[in-house]
């Protein structure tokens, strides 16, 4: 296992946001999405297939993602997911609300630190 940082559990609902964010750049298949998330998180996040695929199917069902079969660089057939217009709107909304939340949490944490010193 690489890295010294311990793996941690993603808060509920965050995985959907990460998937949308990753897929927003270009259409991708499930394996690549998992790889990319792992890579961006500097190996801290290992997305289990057990949560990835149900999440993908759920997002597809909610029409936030659209799926299409296509060929990979190695010429194999894979299911590619891409962001729909509805998905783009959702991503924007969720990003904003997430930022507001983190800002607020940060504010509290800083405030707490200031008290102690």
């Amino acid at each position, binding site marked *: 296992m690489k890295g010294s940082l311990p793996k941690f559990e993603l808060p509920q609902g965050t995985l959907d946001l990460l998937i949308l964010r990753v897929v927003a750049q270009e259409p991708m298949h499930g394996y690549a999405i998992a790889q990319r998330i792992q890579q961006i998180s500097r190996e801290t996040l290992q997305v289990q297939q057990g949560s990835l695929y*149900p999440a993908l199917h759920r997002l597809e*069902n909610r029409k936030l993602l659209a799926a299409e079969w296509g060929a990979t660089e190695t010429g*194999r057939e894979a299911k590619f997911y891409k962001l729909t217009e509805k998905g783009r709107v959702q991503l924007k909304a969720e990003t904003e609300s997430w930022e507001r939340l983190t800002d607020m949490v940060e504010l509290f944490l800083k405030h707490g630190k200031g008290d102690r010193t």
Partner: protein
Amino acid sequence: MNWFRRLWQRERMESELDRELRFHMEAQAEEKVRGGMSEEDARRAVRLQFGGVTQLKEECRESRGTAWLEDFIQDLRFGARVLARAPGFSFTAIAVLALGIGVTTLAFSLYNLAALETIPVHDPARIVRIERRSPENVAPDVPYVSIAYYREHATTISAVMAAMQGSPVAIEGDEKRVEPEFVTANYFSELGGEAAAGRLFDAAHEDSEASNPAMVMSYRLWQQRFGGDPSVVGRTVLVGGKPATMIGVTARNFASLGTDQPDVWLPLTQISYFVEGSRKLSDPKFDGNILLWGRLASGASASQAAEELLGLTNQLRPLYPDVIWNQERILVTPGAHFFTEDGAAPFLALMWGLVLLVLVTACANLGGLLTARGAGRTHEIELRVQLGAGRLRLFRQLLTENLLLGLLGSLAALPLCFVALREALNYTEAPEWMSALPDWRVFTFAAAMGFFSALLFGLLPTLQMVQRKKGRRLWNQFIVCAQVGASCVLMIVAGLLVRATLHMVYAEPGFAYRDVVSIDPELGDHGFTAVAAQQYLDELNASLRNVPGVETAADVLSPPLVNRVVMMTSVKANGRRISMIYPNWVSAEFFETMRIPLLRGRTMRDGETGVVVISRSLAIARWPDEDPIGKAWNDKGDVVVGVVGDTRAMEMNNSDAKEVYFPVAKDRMAEMSVLVRTSGVSSDVLRKIKSASEGVDSRLRPSITPLRSGYAKTVTEVERVASIVSVLGGLATFLAVVGLLGLVSYAVAQRTKELAIRLALGAGRVEIVAAIARRFAVPVALGVALGVAGTAAISQLIRRALYGVSGVDPASYVGALAVLIAVLGLAAMLPIRRAFRIDIARILHFE
């Protein structure tokens, strides 16, 4: 992709999911190989990392949103297999449900036919019934002056159709009279009625008084009286002695408006020809009994029509102040239904209640069956839980099994219901258009009944099965209690009705009807004024008294047993209302002719007014502690002069009947009939009476009916209701017996070991019977108590729905309870007796 497409393309989705996951695994393995692992190791590592692929797939399916339905289909298949494996249980459960649902569906089908379904006429949605109301008056009929005025001036109504039932008439001199109906010439064309032979009325031929007398007959009469002979069309036929051309026959499934089923139709415009002297249409004083329907003009609503017709009525009032009521308003309601009577609500409510009780018994029975079966399946459930079945999943599966049972019960109920309904329709000679085939409403109803019975009574046993609890005692007791209670109510009501019938058949009605004949000359129909009627009646009486075999003759407004209309009134005395008083207007000879005993005072004298005679029960109810003679009956100056014996003359089955007799009133002279007492009704005497009464005025054809035949008819009607309820009671009791039999067997089977030990230890049989019986005694007793209390509580409703059935007749209660308890006792003893034959050694060894 929408939800349905996803469901239908299930197989494609499955293979895609497969391919998607395989790609992921392979890609991951390849990377590991690139990292230096051997291919085999890489594959194994990936598989380990992936964990349960099946579970992963299941979660993907869940997130697709079709999982529950796929599960449901799977459960349904599984349920069908489980039911097929236990044919005995499945058959019993389905049969029990089919009986319960069948009875409810039958009742619903009848209601559906009569009140929900529109009759098969042209554009039924626009046909309306037009009636009138005022704060004091309720009448089904509309005055002819209004009808004629509406026809001329109404714009919201495109056609008015009027119909009036006439007095029965003889056809071709045949004494078996038929029911005529006078209708407007547009009646058949507006309803889209077709002819089976010849033609029906049309405006070009039958719309005027001067046109050729014509008649149309029903398909039924054509078949019964003329054997379907087509040559009868065009022939001249005597109707009540008047020649008329038989122009055609209605189609077999022709639906007439209203509940009357006429045998012949005559043009309303020709009424004064067929009923000689009739002034029904020309003189508002003789108006009455004409029912009115209309067809709404396109774009007009019922309320717009009501408003317009009210305006027209108000214009008429100054011209006809005697006919148009003050504050009269017009009621416009949907008209294309067989049955729209709102007065039948108590009767309908009672019937629904009784029918639902049968369903409750059936459902409780199902609950018992499921419980007993649940006990036999503990092992299976245990195994499935250990194999990892989720509790909710298991519950859902068992519930699906129950639903399947419920739906199969509904399915089995439909043919039962169809056969019973067909028989019922034949039995009651229902109109031909009424079909016993279930329509969508009946299907929906039956399915809903199956669904709810399975859900309600399957829920608790299923929950207990899933929770693997042993404590089912309370539930069992509830089931026994519900079954016994429901059967109890049904049995008592059946008992009440049977008793009422017997009472009617065997008790003396308070007057001697056997040798009395009623003669109704229908003077009002023939336009007789009061003076002319008085004169006619005097002559008729004199002529009849000369007939050999006739002892006495009397005038009466409402002849007992053969009266068509029953009048009822009530008075207020000492701050409470005395109801069910039947008024009648009679001449002095009435009491002698009917052999009603005079108990106190005297009867009225010839030509006397301002006096009344009351019956004994009325005297007791109104003046319990005083002498009624000389008391004022009302504030109009009528004084009580005599008290006579009670009779049940107006409604045979009403044992609470009270009578008040007024002297013949001048203004009702044309409505009077004549009663004669003979020394014995024979065809010879009847013939002589006929010729004597026809000799007085050759224009009239009085209907001559022996009271005996009216009596027989009334008895048949009450017997009919009593037999229906008895069947329901029998059915419920049968179900309760089967249910109790099952539950006691189950209880005995569960305690076989305990019984064996007790027997081995030398316990007495009585002791053991008592031990088992004790478990069931409490719920049975509670059920009986609830049943009795329930029946007593609805006894008022019973009385209102079925006159004269006393709601608190102790003999019926005791009789019904005795039968019920005896039958239940037998049902309980059977399995207990079997328990004694057990082989003690084998049982103990086995355990």
